[in-house]
């Protein structure tokens, strides 16, 4: 099967900054594909390269097997949901949604029918006559989605679409986007810096760091088998110890300095730097005697000593089996 999107050795340079550094990957049709990374890691530039807002300085971008490296956005069968929604403020909601049809000269009655159908799909039936300024953030988000989907794109690009929404709405929209994607069978390419969002929604995730993909894997593999220190820290929030292996914070116990070491366990001595209450868990930052920072979390109310103050000497203990070797660097 031809890949929906394929990058072959793509480069994009802005002045002295290499935003995308010889990146290659392929996205399968119908996949929910996330590009995860901190800001400036190249994920948004990759999205813009797919949309056609950026053209590559080297390599090839292919859509459905066809090289589109020099094709302008208006000749590509992909649509984008923008981070700031980018709704046209001088048009009604319905005119926004039907914009893509109208510029292709679809008859007015047909535009209206399809526009209303799309508004119904995103549960905004009665807002067609309103202006974008009269909508809430979540409603604008849905209009942006309807405006993109009305064109029946083969690929939908989403650039941190939920970033501006509050937590509860964000979680609702995550579920809704995922079920919409399953129902429509469209390839989704989702850019986010929120690892939880990427893990919970995606079939596969590409983790970006300084213009390159560090690891491209299923969410489970990224979390359980990070290959680099960057992925271990960024995706799993794991501790990287001696640069060679990762240990998840929830696998580390905080014990008295003189506690015995169980069989098959590792033990490191250190001093508590800080401790925070997070509701379900308590989190400790410990500086080890060989000067590494390690974070440990334990369920609140666990037998672990909750009252320990910063400055207390402790021992950090974890099972050898919970160590994840970092193979790539």
């Amino acid at each position, binding site marked *: 099967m031809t890949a929906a999107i394929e990058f072959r050795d793509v480069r994009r340079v802005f002045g002295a900054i290499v935003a995308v550094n010889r990146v290659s990957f392929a996205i399968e049709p119908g996949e929910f594909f996330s590009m995860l990374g901190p800001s400036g890691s190249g994920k948004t530039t990759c999205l813009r390269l797919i*949309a*056609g*807002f950026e053209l590559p300085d080297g390599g090839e971008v292919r859509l459905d097997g066809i090289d589109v490296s020099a094709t*302008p*956005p*208006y000749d590509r069968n*992909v*649509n*984008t949901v*923008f*981070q*700031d929604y*980018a709704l*046209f*403020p*001088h048009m009604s909601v319905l005119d926004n949604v039907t*914009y*893509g049809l109208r*510029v*292709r000269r679809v008859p007015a009655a047909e535009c209206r029918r399809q526009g209303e159908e799309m508004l119904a799909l995103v549960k905004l039936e009665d807002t067609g006559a309103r202006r974008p300024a009269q909508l809430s953030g979540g409603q604008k988000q849905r209009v942006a989605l309807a*405006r*993109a989907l009305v*064109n029946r794109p083969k690929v939908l690009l989403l650039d941190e679409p939920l970033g501006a929404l509050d937590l509860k709405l964000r979680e609702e929209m995550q579920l809704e986007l995922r079920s919409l994607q399953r129902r429509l069978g469209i390839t989704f390419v989702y850019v986010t810096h929120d690892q939880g969002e990427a893990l919970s929604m995606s079939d596969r995730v590409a983790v970006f760091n300084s213009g390159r993909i560090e690891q491209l894997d299923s969410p489970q593999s990224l979390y359980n088998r990070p290959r680099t220190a960057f992925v271990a820290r960024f995706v799993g929030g794991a501790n990287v110890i001696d640069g060679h292996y990762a240990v998840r914070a929830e696998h580390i116990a905080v014990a008295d300095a003189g506690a015995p070491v169980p069989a098959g366990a590792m033990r490191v001595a250190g001093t508590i730097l800080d401790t925070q209450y997070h509701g379900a868990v308590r989190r400790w930052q410990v500086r080890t005697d060989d000067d590494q920072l390690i974070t440990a979390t334990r369920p609140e109310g666990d037998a672990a000593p909750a009252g320990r103050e910063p400055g207390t000497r402790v021992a950090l203990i974890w099972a050898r089996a919970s160590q994840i070797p970092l193979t790539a660097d």
Partner: protein
Amino acid sequence: MTTCDSNLAAPHPLRTASTFFYRRPSLAVYLLLVPPLLWFGTVYLGSLFALLAQSFYAIDEYTATIVRRVTLATYAQLFTQPANLDIVLRTTQMAIAVTIVAAVMAFPLANFMARHARGRVKAFFYVAVMLPMWTSYLVKVYAWRLILAKEGILSWCLSALGLDGILEAVLRTPGIGGPSLSSSYLGMFIVFVYMWLPFMVLPIAAALERVPASLLAASADLGATPSQTFWRVTLPLALPGVAAGSIFTFSLTLGDYIIPSVVGAPGYFIGMMVYQQQGTAGNIPLAAAFSVVPIVLIGIYLALARRAGAFDAL
């Protein structure tokens, strides 16, 4: 430590005043509003009202004094005498032509300044557009008269290039031509456009600066070609700026009396009539009636622009 304590005990009087106003934010706003309101309310609106009132008086033809009785005689004189009506039409046509050409010329420049230029290039363009405004208006008008004169640099350049035939053909064109560029409506038009172009460029650039780049990207993303994006997104969102700029160019052209008297054909313009009627002719009511014309025309223009949706994006 002791200084800290004494500060807390006895705050500075200015600080007390600041706190007083900080706790009553609207009071400060209204107090600061008083001087400009007095200025606008009395000086500006007052004189405007006096002007309007004058236009409803008439002059006694024998004694040449103003009769302070409300009458429409002056307006009748304005709209029934063909010479006066000609002046209104001539000035309005010039103002419309200047506004349209200034807008068409200003848009690409403003678009470049707002959307493409960065850093020093951008600063250069903004300064370059405003620089002519730092020079005396009269100096510029007389400079243009010399540039456009029969023996001036423009005709010299054209004849050096062997293009004087074109200039002569243009000058023979009825309506815009004349004996030389400096004594033709075309020459006057060139000077008007030059003079008012910055007033068109800056509001359009300001409007375009406020259009997020993502809107243009979204339009292209949804399948619109660059020209569709221009007509459906860029221009509608820049229209408030075009409207603001055209109010400047339109009203400045309607009211100007120096450019038509220094450069251009002999026909009178509204500004010249106002200047002459309230000066040498001493007919202040007619001068006032002529002054009302631009105000009414601008009002009509704004109403039309509003109906055309120029302010929908605001």
